[in-house]
């Protein structure tokens, strides 16, 4: 019998339960995160129009670069200011 060593980090992933899906967006604050990909703003401009049209409040955020993780301060800001977030992931 061969015994080998585990090449992984052996990390135990903490699973977090998702928030319940809101029945309506009326009156909720929706964050729109632009990851700085070309034309992501075009997509999010249209989404903002649609959301405000149905009574949601919209806040816009931008990652400094699509190539790196969103800074922790930005993530914290979005989490404290919004109930819902939409990310424009790619062009």
């Amino acid at each position, binding site marked *: 019998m061969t*015994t*080998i*060593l*585990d*090449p992984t980090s052996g990390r135990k992933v903490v699973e977090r339960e998702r928030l319940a899906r809101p029945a309506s967006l009326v009156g909720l604050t929706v964050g729109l995160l632009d990851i700085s990909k070309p034309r992501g703003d075009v997509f999010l401009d249209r989404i903002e129009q649609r959301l405000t049209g149905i009574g949601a409040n919209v806040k816009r955020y931008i990652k400094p*670069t699509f*190539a*790196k*993780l969103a800074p922790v301060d930005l993530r914290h800001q979005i989490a404290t200011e919004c109930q819902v977030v939409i990310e424009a992931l*790619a062009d």
Partner: protein
Amino acid sequence: MTASTAPLLPDGIVVVVKRECETCQMVVPVLRELSEAIELHVYTQDDPDFPDAPAAVSDSDLAVSWFHNIETVPTVIRVANGVETNRTAGWMRSAWEELTGVEDLGADLPPMRPGCGSMSVDPDLVDGLRARFGGSTLSSRRIEVAAAEDEFEMMFARGWTDGLPVVPPTDARVMAMLEGTGRAPSDIVTVVPPNLDEITVEKVAIAAVMAGCKPEYLPWVLTAVEAACNDEFNMHGVLATTMPVSPVIVCSGPGTRAIGMNSGGNALGQGNRANLTIGRALQLVVRNFGGGRPGEVDRATHGHPGKVSFCFAEADDTSPYGSLAVEHGIEPEVDALTVFAGEGPQGFVDQLSREPESLASSMAARLQAIQHPKLVMMFDAIVVMGPEHARVFAAAGWDRNRILTEVNSHLNRPGTDLVRGAHGITEGVPEAFGEAESLPKFRPGGLMLAYAGGGAGLFSQIIAGWVNGDKGSKPVTRAVQY
């Protein structure tokens, strides 16, 4: 018998022998003389029937030899109250007589003859013995592979491979790998994306074993992992991008030759163990320890074959313009590597330019096209110049700076040429740059030179980069830490 602690030696005289050793065979009559005169205990490493008289105790698992540091057979040890008080190795009549207190030993034998290597220091056996007896200092979880299970298939099934078989990282292999560095297995090397756990030297050694590295490659692998996994190189972004990029490792210094890396013909290709496995080990670290796998965090649209491994050495000992590492501030003759977020190599053919001006202009024309002719300053590139191209510049006395300056001088184009929509092509630089009089293809320092390749062929290779600078990835150069 498998001992985990040192077996006690019996009081009296202990002799360790093996049949394969001619000196051991020669001293068998002496052993008989001793067995009649004193309390003698013979341990034999290979053949339990050797010698037939006096009878020997088998040390077939080499526990006695390992724990009592037998380096040569025969070795004679005096033991009193369970403690060694003296020893001699090989055959030397005077030493044996003094140690045993028996006179006139081996009267027919020459006065001395050197012994043979003990099986417990046999290079083919020592790694296994170290794992079995050495008191493993490794802390990784052990995974048992069932007797009926194929360990290679098991590792495929667990998703631990890059699509090619990997070497099973057993205790013995990982401990042997760790002999390649002076660093402790528990030392933290860096934090590996995307899961961002701290990786130890031990875990890097496991990846190096799996990749097929030899222990002497480990310092290069450790340095590559440390160079790639930081905010400057941005391994997370390089992994996650849809573009076909991965860490390209450019090595230089006398150590590349000491470990047999290839900087000559086919340097970027197959066939050299060090080139291939060092690059592969970094990828396996990111895959298995970092958790970065294709289709998950790795979102590459196409990828490229170098994502299995892309590592080569520069011929810095014959380079007319030094090495990339020196360009980045490392002292000459220091072992170093640069990690660069690059695509697969793209050819540059110019078989007619014999004047440096022509070759520089020609090379620039080729470089303008990387990623897109109308996209500028966003992407760096390394030109891996072959000796026949480099010779054209060297013969004219152009050094590295001169080559780069001249090539870059042909890479400035007006904004009107590059702006979105120009030439009927929607892709291009944003409208804000349309008025610019001149836009360079490369940011300062964005065009780099390396030197490698075979002696024949008026070719160079271009390794195009990913999003550069603070917004993407910067090339990172590090001296190798041994």
